[in-house]
């Protein structure tokens, strides 16, 4: 009986998927079909959420429970060769339950939103087919009790992501974006797969937990890691496994250097961006790290790598978000940056706070995307912030939820983001392997920049003077989200999103406001609710004998500093753009346009000069030239990224050997032969 509820959580979205996929066959009338799909698809996910809640209250989920033990659905896989047995087992522990709740909860809300958002698209059923499949795969990823099931989910969500990014595949940019995501993710997946193979060859099993304590994590949950046969596992092997798995996480969670796909993935419909590329799928890397925390704590090297990758990603992501003009791109880079925070948390061994940030991030980033979606929806597909502004009057409700989310992500005191981010910063400052202060500083700077660019987004979108005369768009820019039979399009009116789209936003806004407090250190029931809840599934650092460094400064001081950073960033942006607005320059950007800098210089604000020098000239240059154009476009962008370019050059050089002349080939053969024969002879002589 205990097993049925969680199973329902898993299988319901699959049912929804099957229904949506088959709806075209069953229901002939396209309108009825659309209506049915829009009802059923969110319905199953919300129902799943209800069941997940029920599981939460029923079991309190304090213990690790491998579900459905010994259902060898995949038994024929690999068994008999190498003695590996992979069961179709699920694991129900706080981690998976938490993730299930987020996936179904936030996912359900986004489904509801999407029903409104996609209402006018022709292929709603295809959309929801993918969407439901995604939810199922994501649940499989978090609920699976072995690497292989996780990998199936991992691949599944990747596929759905690919399908959804290029949902409007007739546009080549979308198709290319989908392909890019696919290719970059394959690199990561290969790392994951290799890590999985390494796990198999080292431990002889792929299960995380088993009832008899013979899963990988069970085995790793000791001061010394033993394999199934009882032999100690060398530390190097654990590091290798962790690093290979990390490659997978880097790809999925868009960390440096595999982050390039995520900004392009924004080509998909906005609900997709909200659900997949903000709230759930991209956090799969963090979930996996947390799931494997038992292994990671045994390898300081791996932890260190994670932490530094996370910190650098956070900073670079934030810097790159500074200069974006596409509203969704800003959010995309912001997501990369926030994921960096989560990695940072995991890297310093504070996995539960990483998960805390996953949760709060799901709320506020989902909200931001949905709000942005509402804006875009209202602007008839316009995504360029330079063409927005003054929307506050026209879209007050949207503005309201967006401001909550912005302040939350910026770390405005007492909002959700504040609590989770602060917890991460504190842990970072106490990193067990040293370097804590630097990590902390990077985190703090990032927080400041985050606050700045988020408020920049708000200002450019909502505050600066209306570019709309009487609600008319001066020019209508067609983009890929244009809905062909949109009646109002002809009039170019900015319209409010329908209520069904706004409802979910309010709920998310509520969570973005209060969840941090609820789960944070000063929450009800003695505080640290989430941390305590997660404790059984997260490895403590002390397992491997690691101890965090002493605190840099008292807790309250920490709160103060990070509050100041957030407020500073917010304030600076507000101040700057208020100036900006006063000048009447509508289409310029303080960050991008240097004429503004000159103007500011001429206005003789001493602070401006410093600010300009320090921040805009240097930071802007760094952000714009080096990071955006240099790093991303030239080096990392496209399939010929970094190493690929190098490989290409090497390849061209090596091709010169292939002259087409058989005599040269024979010469190479002879050279190889002589080397081989003499080399072997020398080797024999040595013995």
């Amino acid at each position, binding site marked *: 009986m205990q097993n049925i509820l969680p199973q329902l959580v898993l299988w319901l979205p699959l049912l929804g998927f099957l229904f949506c996929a088959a709806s075209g066959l069953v229901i002939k009338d396209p309108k009825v079909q659309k209506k049915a799909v829009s009802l059923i698809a969110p319905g199953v996910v919300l129902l799943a959420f209800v069941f997940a809640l029920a599981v939460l209250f029923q079991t309190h989920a304090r213990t690790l429970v491998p579900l459905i033990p010994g259902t060898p659905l995949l038994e024929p896989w690999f068994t008999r060769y190498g003695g590996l047995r992979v069961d179709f087992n699920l694991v129900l522990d706080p981690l998976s339950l938490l993730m299930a709740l987020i996936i179904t909860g936030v996912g359900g809300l986004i489904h509801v939103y999407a029903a409104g958002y996609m209402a006018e698209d022709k292929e709603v059923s295809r959309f929801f087919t993918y969407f439901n499949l995604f939810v199922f795969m994501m649940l499989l990823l978090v609920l699976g009790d072995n690497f292989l099931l996780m990998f199936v989910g991992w691949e599944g969500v990747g596929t759905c992501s690919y399908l959804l990014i290029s949902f409007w595949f007739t546009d080549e940019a979308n198709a290319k974006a989908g392909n890019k995501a696919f290719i970059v993710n394959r690199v990561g997946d290969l790392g994951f797969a290799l890590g999985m193979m390494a796990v198999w060859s080292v431990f002889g099993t792929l299960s995380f937990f088993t009832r008899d304590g013979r899963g990988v994590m069970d085995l790793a949950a000791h001061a010394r890691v033993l394999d199934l046969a009882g032999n100690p596992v060398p530390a190097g092997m654990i590091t290798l496994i962790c690093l290979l798995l990390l490659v997978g996480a880097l790809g999925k969670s868009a960390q440096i250097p595999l982050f390039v796909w995520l900004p392009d993935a924004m080509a998909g419909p906005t609900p997709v961006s909200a659900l997949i590329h903000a709230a759930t799928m991209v956090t799969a890397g963090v979930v996996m790290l947390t799931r494997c925390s038992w292994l990671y704590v045994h390898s300081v090297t791996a932890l260190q790598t994670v932490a530094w990758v996370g910190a650098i990603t956070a900073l670079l992501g934030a810097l790159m978000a500074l200069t974006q003009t596409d509203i969704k791109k800003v959010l995309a880079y912001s997501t990369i940056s926030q994921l960096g925070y989560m990695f940072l948390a995991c890297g310093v061994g504070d996995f539960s706070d990483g998960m805390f940030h996953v949760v709060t991030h799901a709320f506020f980033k989902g909200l931001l995307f949905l709000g942005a979606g509402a804006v875009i929806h209202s602007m008839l597909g316009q995504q360029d912030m330079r063409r927005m502004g003054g929307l506050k009057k026209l879209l007050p409700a949207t503005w309201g939820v967006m401001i909550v989310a912005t302040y939350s992500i910026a770390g405005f005191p007492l909002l959700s983001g504040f609590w989770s981010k602060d917890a991460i910063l504190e842990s970072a400052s106490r990193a067990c392997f040293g370097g804590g202060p630097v990590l902390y500083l990077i985190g703090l700077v990032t927080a400041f920049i985050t606050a700045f660019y988020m408020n920049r987004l708000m200002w450019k979108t909502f505050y600066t003077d209306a570019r709309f005369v009487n609600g008319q768009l001066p020019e209508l820019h067609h983009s890929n989200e244009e809905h062909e039979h949109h009646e109002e399009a002809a009039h170019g009116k900015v319209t409010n999103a329908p209520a069904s789209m706004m409802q979910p936003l309010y709920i998310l806004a509520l969570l973005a406001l209060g969840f941090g407090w609820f789960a944070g250190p000063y929450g009800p029931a003695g505080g640290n609710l989430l941390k305590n809840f997660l404790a059984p599934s997260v490895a403590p650092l002390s397992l491997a004998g690691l101890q965090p460094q002493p605190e840099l400064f008292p807790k309250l001081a920490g709160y103060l500093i990070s509050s100041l950073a957030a407020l500073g960033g917010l304030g600076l942006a507000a101040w700057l753009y208020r100036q900006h607005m006063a000048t009447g320059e509508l289409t310029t950007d303080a960050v991008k346009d240097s004429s503004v800098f000159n103007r500011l210089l001429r206005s003789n604000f001493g602070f401006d000069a410093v600010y300009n020098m320090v921040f805009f000239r240097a930071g802007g240059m760094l952000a714009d030239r080096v990071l955006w154009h240099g790093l991303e476009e030239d080096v990392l962008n496209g399939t010929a990224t970094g190493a690929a370019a190098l490989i290409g050059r090497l390849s061209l050089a090596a091709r010169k050997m292939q002259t087409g002349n058989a*005599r040269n080939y024979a010469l190479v053969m*002879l050279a190889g032969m002589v080397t081989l*024969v003499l080399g072997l002879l020398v080797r024999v002589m040595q013995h």
Partner: protein
Amino acid sequence: MFAQILFWVLAAICIISSLVMVGSSNPVRSALALVLTMLSLAVMYITLSAQFIAAVQVVVYAGAVMVLFLFVIMLLNLGAPALPEQPRSMQTVLAIALAGVFLVGLVAAGVFQNLPAAPISAKHLHGLGTVQQIGYSLYSPHQPWLFPFEATSILLLIAVVGAIVLARKQPAETEGS
């Protein structure tokens, strides 16, 4: 004594004629030099109690293979040395250097000196290399050579079919399809 002199004479002929073969730019002269090498090798085989092989060497190599070579050279009228060799090209220098290293390496390592002791006696040498022995080895059900022998027949069949496929004028081609 006689055997020694014979060996050195034959070895000298072999080496010189093979060098002529490699050095000559005239294919016909190369071919003749190779025939000479093969014939002197055949004589050497007789001294190594391999009379049958010696005869076969002459029949197959000198009599068939090399004649075929000459035949093709003449058929394609390649006799004239139209191809100036570049004696000092990188390819040549490297080739000779590598081959020299190989040979010196093999000899210096003592590859040819440290042989396992051989169970040699008059009993072993009796009838070695006669036609009867060859026949016995090839066809005896107690020797492993029956199968390779049959396999060579297939190999030769492949070669015959292949040569015909490659060299025969195709009716389809002449039709100009």
